């Protein structure tokens, strides 16, 4: 039965003299092997040298803060709803008087956790967020020997004061 027209019959005719003396075939193969010495290497020496990330790379999550350092997240739960792996959990609280410099709106995430063991880095949380609060950075998820390391708390993901100062100064990051 012929399924496609691309099928080629195996050539079973007896070998010619050139093929039987073996040496030319070895030389041909070595030529290809030696040729690769002069070609550009396909690998990089990783820790010292790093490849640039694709612009759509999705790495470790970052919780954003605004210019005044207030947390953007209002614990609306849309990231948790969008999450196909059910990795995100949170508990909301009401902002008290005197906490206005910490949280942008009257409701905020008192607890926010991402279980990185479950996370599949699909980026749906980033896409669902109406408050510009969660982003996926260009950081590869670090590895570890214990599982409890991978439960990321809010403080682990919130951008730091230094990062905030750098962003306010340079407009980047």
């Amino acid at each position, binding site marked *: 039965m012929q399924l496609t027209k691309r099928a080629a019959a195996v050539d079973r005719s007896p070998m010619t003299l050139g093929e039987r003396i073996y040496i030319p075939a070895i030389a041909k193969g070595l030529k290809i092997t030696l040729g690769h010495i002069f070609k550009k290497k396909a690998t990089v020496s990783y820790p010292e040298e790093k490849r640039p990330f694709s612009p759509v790379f999705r790495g470790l999550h970052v919780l954003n803060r605004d210019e005044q350092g207030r947390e953007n997240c209002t614990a*609306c739960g849309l990231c948790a709803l969008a999450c196909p792996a059910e990795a995100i959990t949170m508990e909301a*609280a*009401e902002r008290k008087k005197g906490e206005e410099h910490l949280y942008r709106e009257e409701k905020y995430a008192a607890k926010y956790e991402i279980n990185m063991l479950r996370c599949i880095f699909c980026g749906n949380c980033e896409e669902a967020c109406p408050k510009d609060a969660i982003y996926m950075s260009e950081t590869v998820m670090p590895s570890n020997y214990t599982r409890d390391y991978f439960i990321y708390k809010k403080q682990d993901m919130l951008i730091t004061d230094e990062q905030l100062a750098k962003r306010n100064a340079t407009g980047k990051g």
Partner: protein
Amino acid sequence: MSEQPNIKVTIDNITIEVAPGTTILEAARQIGGEVAPPTMCYYSKLKGSGGKCRTCLVEVNKGSEKDPRPMPKLVASCRTGVMDGMEVKSMTSEKVIDARKGVTEFLLLNHPLDCPVCDQAGECHLQDLSYENGAATTRYEYDRRTFEPEDIGPHIQLHMNRCIMCFRCVFTADQLTETREHGILDRGDHAKISTCISKALDNDFIGNVIDVCPVGALTDKTFRFKNRVWFTKPVDAHRNCSNPKCCGEARLWMRGEEVYRVTARKDEWGEVATASNGQTGWICDECRFEKKQTSDWTIEGPTKVNRHSVIAQGHYQGKVGTATQPILIDEVIGKRPKLTLDIHKVSEVNKPEIHLSEIEGPAHSDDFK
């Protein structure tokens, strides 16, 4: 009335016989589905409601059998009675669709964009309306109308900025409770719901204004910020309420064994459903705000949720807490898998010893210490 024969009315090419005196909206609801115009202020269980929001506008292209002229303008279907031989266009009329879009834009003029914060999100009628009929952007260039936050009591949270002036809560308080303590103050753009002298509302049935409110202007303070609506699971339950006016049939919104919120049961139009005793299933404040234990209630079973609703995302089977998973791992590797991580040892969320549902109002930073 009873001697009068039923009259025929055609809505979106579907003919139905209804009793004389029925409104177009009620006739359309009898047909059901998408033929029924959306409503924001009309509430079939409240006398005198309707005629304010204009979301239920329909086109009447034949007045009646005797006078077949079309009505010159779109009419509010909640306030217009049907006539014999009337022909109405609801969702088949382009004028109606356009009018709904305009009305939605008007309703959203001063409505804050705070759905991420609002506890009504997920069961908000204005959200549904704007999702189906609204434009994606606003043309309004001015600042939205804002009000000073006002405390109207320990159980009900008022967010005046979100109010769309449907008057439903005022009718509820008028018709359900002995005394009405809140009403609409001021006029026009400044109109607001208030208790005048910030007097706490403490009637037995005042909690029903929460169920009646189509937006998040009146929400349950005992549920405030505790959880999002779609992460809680609705369960129908009842209890023997000592209040003779209360039907005791309610809907519990649970998470695990915790009862986060108690509401009345709603029908397919988002209105409080008729209880088994034939009366409207309003529930008293004791049932709503104070019975937050599973042991207070007899659970009937999970609520049937429309599968297009976001609330259906936490799909579940059987009675809550009774469903068991079949254990197949014994047949696969012949032993119990070794548990390498107990999530509660690491995670700070959903701690088994912290019961958010038992905190009086919304949680604060010191509740998580």
